[in-house]
């Protein structure tokens, strides 16, 4: 499986922000099986609070979320807190195809965006390895 994650003494910490339960459970399971420590958030507000007060090696951020969408979460974090996308890699993980929204997120320092339906679990792990700090 993923040797990288198992090699480090302390497992890397990933935050999964996803409102669909079936998908959230799936991602958490995939990442945990690969040896990562995983926290999950199911709406924008929780994501904001969690990212404000914790550090992660990677954040997988959905856009369509209840309470606050993913872009708003990023905007709020970068303007109101010490959160920095330079320190914490954030990758958009969405099923939206709207270029404008994604372009906006890129200006906020997002490292990339993945269309969920295009990725199998093993492909997700490859991408995680690519972006994780």
């Amino acid at each position, binding site marked *: 499986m993923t040797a990288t994650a198992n090699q480090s003494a302390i497992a890397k910490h990933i935050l999964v922000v996803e409102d*669909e339960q*079936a*998908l959230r459970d*799936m991602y958490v*399971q*995939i990442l945990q*099986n690969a040896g990562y420590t995983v926290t999950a958030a199911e709406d924008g507000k929780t994501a904001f609070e969690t990212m404000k007060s914790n550090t992660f090696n990677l954040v997988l951020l959905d856009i*369509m979320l209840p309470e606050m969408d993913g872009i708003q979460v990023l905007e709020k974090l970068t303007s109101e807190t010490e959160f920095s996308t330079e320190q914490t890699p954030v990758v958009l993980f969405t*099923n*939206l*195809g*709207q*270029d404008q929204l994604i372009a906006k997120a890129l200006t906020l320092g997002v490292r990339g965006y993945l*269309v*969920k*339906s*295009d990725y*199998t*679990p*093993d492909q997700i792990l490859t991408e995680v390895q690519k972006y994780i700090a």
Partner: protein
Amino acid sequence: MHKHDVIHEELKVVSSLSRLQKVILDTLDLQTVVQDVVNATLKELEFLGFDISVVVLNLIDEKADVLRRTSISHTDVAKAAVQGLPIPFSKVEIPMEATENICVSSIHEKKSMLTHSWDDILSPPLKPEDAIMLQKGVGVRTSIVFPLISRDSEVGSMIFSFQKNITKLSSIEEEVLWRMTDTAGLAVQNSRLYTNLHQANQKITRANKRLREIDTLKDEFISLASHELRTPMTAIKGYLWMTLNQAPVKLHPTVEHNLEICYQSAERLIRLVNDMLTVSRIEGKRIKINKVSMELADLTRQICEEMAIPAQQKGLRLQCPVAKGDTRLVADPDKLRQVITNIIGNAIKFTPPKGKVTMKMQTDATQVHVIISDTGPGIRPEDRDKLFTKFGKFEHAYEQQQNITGTGLGLYISKQIVSLHDGSITVESEVGKGTTFTVSLPKPGTKSKGKAAESDTKRNHSRNKDHNLLARESQQKKKGGAK
């Protein structure tokens, strides 16, 4: 008459008619024209010495098939007549079949007609006794009707009423009235044609606005629907994958096989949603071509290498391009990757085992060509036209069977992307021998004829679209709106 007087009289008539023409041909607004016609005509007739009391304009309403009172000159006699009518002036409508009414029959017979009885100009809307009583109250002795015919169309008629008894008009008087009514007919017809055109134009403008709104709604819907469809598809794909690849128990072969089919179908559905989104973006002109400097040879080599395994699995020989010549381009590599992968993927898909697929590159002065050939069954002439259309389906059994993974949109999207690069895709095929697709892209710095030709076809296409909208509208009018 003295020669001098004759010329003077003639000049008077000419200047009068000229003035009349100027006034009533000056405007296209129907409301203004119909009033100007009666007022100006009355004024000029007075100027020429006619002892005229009332001028009335009747116009034909083709839909209702009646001749309707439209306007009346502003004189005291006219006012009295209108006030004395038992029904409103504009409701005095004479059916076009009521030929006993001289307002109508003068039109049918194209002759001027004279009467001393208002029964002849006001029935059947008015009872004969009411008509005559009105006439007596107003004091008109003679009414003369002239038809208005313009460009062979019947427009209406005009009524000239006098308080004195006239039995016959002199030939000069007839001539003057004919000239005036001809001008009046022309003015009214011009105005009506203009008004119809103006209304049709407004209708089309509104229709176009509505179409644009619907187009935007369609795009928004497709974006939303794509997202909604992708969500459960992601779960299906993900959980199936985990079941097939990471199950805690070994799967029974039949179960594994069935789940494999499910997985492939899920993938196909996801690809279809992706393609539909792409098509929507292309058609909504929201697609972005991010052009960069690139080496087409690198891209084609990469794709060919990726295709080696699927080709081998199918028992096909795959020949990849050899680097030769300058294949530098300014283009969007991701989009071109999509196009070339689609075409070579099709070649591999539709060529039976033991066949051969080759990819070559060629350059000439202005273009770079990617040529993909296969030894497949070839494309039949009747299928050629459907090739680049959306969801064009092949009838051939082998192709249908091989296309279980296809979305039906690949070639349509490829063609659009290549067009947006000012390039072209051509096909050559022979049934039983094989098919060759050629993707041609302009070299950087060449203003390709392709672009000029394409914008011409774009212009022609949009002209045709508007033309079709007009044609369809008039067709629907004829059919009474039925489709």
